[in-house]
């Protein structure tokens, strides 16, 4: 489209940038001290190769075992639970995070206080402790419900549910800070313009402020999701059947600890790599000093005004 595409794409070489007609070829400017860079690279390569050689030759890793368990059904099942926990607890975290961020901004002081207390408590205690807490909830409330609708707590709060509650509620406290920063990043004039147009405060929040805050909120949320992929391994202490739990169960019987941890690392790395790739794609679509020019347009293609003046149906989403 224009020069922006090149800056944002980043992968194109400087010399291939479009040149104004009639302009002379670009000057070729060479780097100095290239031999030093080469030397440093070679030294790093040697150290890495040596470390690799030592690990492989130590015999501690039985690659055959790694291979055997890499696609073993319990490992794959555990990986699936890890993914489920990540997605679901992030969803809980986002919902609670929006709620807490809005509560903190409330004019009603008691509501604001509840939001602040939530953030204070769940950011102030270790998530591992919180997980064990949820897991042992039956010690505080042996049954849940009222009247004839009563169930034993341990039937309701299974290890998976305890993991979800622990991770999700903890994440909400962190997400609320991300949302707060995002909402604060939207210029106050946007709110005033919305109010002056006769929109109610909640319409202004939903239709004007939140959509723009999202641009600021999305990258750190991706970061949190990638962190969550790894944080889920904590739920192995309450045997929530995630990837680490499964791997631990296997090495508890065959004692091939390192090999199975490598299996676990393979799947964690695969998931975080895919997530990182997705995040960088998302961020690139938000990139640029002015988020309104390139990023959001690409991101919202088909949703908003890019459809142009001719098609009223595509101009905006519904309220």
């Amino acid at each position: 489209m224009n020069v922006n595409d090149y800056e944002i794409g980043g992968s194109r070489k400087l010399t291939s940038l479009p040149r104004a007609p009639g302009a002379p070829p670009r000057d070729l400017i060479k780097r100095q001290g290239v031999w030093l860079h080469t030397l440093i690279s070679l030294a790093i390569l040697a150290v890495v190769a040596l470390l690799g050689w030592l690990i492989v030759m130590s015999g501690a890793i039985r690659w055959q075992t790694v291979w055997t368990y890499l696609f073993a059904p319990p490992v794959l099942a555990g990986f699936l639970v890890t993914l489920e926990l990540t997605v679901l607890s992030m969803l809980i975290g986002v919902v609670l995070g929006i709620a807490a961020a809005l509560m903190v901004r409330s004019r009603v002081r008691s509501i604001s206080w509840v939001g602040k207390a939530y953030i204070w408590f769940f950011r102030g205690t270790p998530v591992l402790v919180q997980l064990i807490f949820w897991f042992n909830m039956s010690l505080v409330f042996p049954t849940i419900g009222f009247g004839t609708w009563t169930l034993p707590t341990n039937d309701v709060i299974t290890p998976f549910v305890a993991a979800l509650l622990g991770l999700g509620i903890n994440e909400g406290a962190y997400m609320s800070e991300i949302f707060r920063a995002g909402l604060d990043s939207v210029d106050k004039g946007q709110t005033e313009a919305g109010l002056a147009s006769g929109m109610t405060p909640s319409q202004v929040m939903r239709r004007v402020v939140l959509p723009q805050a999202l641009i600021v909120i999305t990258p750190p949320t991706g970061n949190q999701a990638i962190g969550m992929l790894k944080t889920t391994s904590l739920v192995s202490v309450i045997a929530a059947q995630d990837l680490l739990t499964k791997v631990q169960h296997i090495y508890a019987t065959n004692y091939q600890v390192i090999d199975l941890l490598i299996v676990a690392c393979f799947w964690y790395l695969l998931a975080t790599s895919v997530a990182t790739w997705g995040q960088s794609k998302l961020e690139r679509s938000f990139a640029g000093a002015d988020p309104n020019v390139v990023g959001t347009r690409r991101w919202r293609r088909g949703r908003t005004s890019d459809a142009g003046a001719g098609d009223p149906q595509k101009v905006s989403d519904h309220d």
Partner: protein
Amino acid sequence: MTDPILVADGIWKSFGNLAVLKGVSMSVSRGEVVALLGPSGSGKSTFLRCLDFLEQPDSGVVTLNGERVGVIETARGLYERKSHDLARQRSRLGMVFQRFNLFGHVSAIENVAMPLRLVKDLSHAEAHERAVEILGRMGLADHGHKRPSQLSGGQQQRVAIARAVALNPDAILFDEPTSALDPELVHEVLDTMSALARDGMTMIVVTHEIGFAKQVADRVVFMDGGVILEQGTAVDVLDNPQNPRTRAFLAKVT
């Protein structure tokens, strides 16, 4: 000019220890164009914002079409209006800001159409049609699909005016609408405003554009130190100022 549409009576407003407005009163008739002049810090913008209840006056009464803005009087005292009620009142009063304040995430058309859908309950198609029509009237037919960041300052401000006009308000308040513009873009915004005035729109304009005040305003009001010092026809106030502070101010800006 005997039909008062927007009336402010004895407006006081302080920020901390600083009294910005010290009992400002003004009555604006239907179709009247009032230019509000004064040095920076004189309280012009704060006064304008009090009329729309973006700032809550410490005391004083603002009425729009005889209805108190922002508060309800009862036997037990004053009560804040519910948010949807205040929103309904604000929809009767347009506001154009110095920094345009267009919604940054949507197109020019959508900037105009969104309030029409949310506030006037128009359908998507109706709101879109009306937005296109009004932007066309403002000379922005080719720019409707663009984002605010892709428009010049003058174009942005004209979209902002279109957004205010689209709601068909009883009056439009302009808060230094040309102060943030490059000099060569000022005239296009002033032309748009002049056209609005000719169409009979009731307007209160905080401005430093003496020429505009002279040509378009039915009444010029000079404010300083939180009070109105002088008002009258453009000829009276601008060509024959009585108050020494008005004279000093006009000597500086012209």
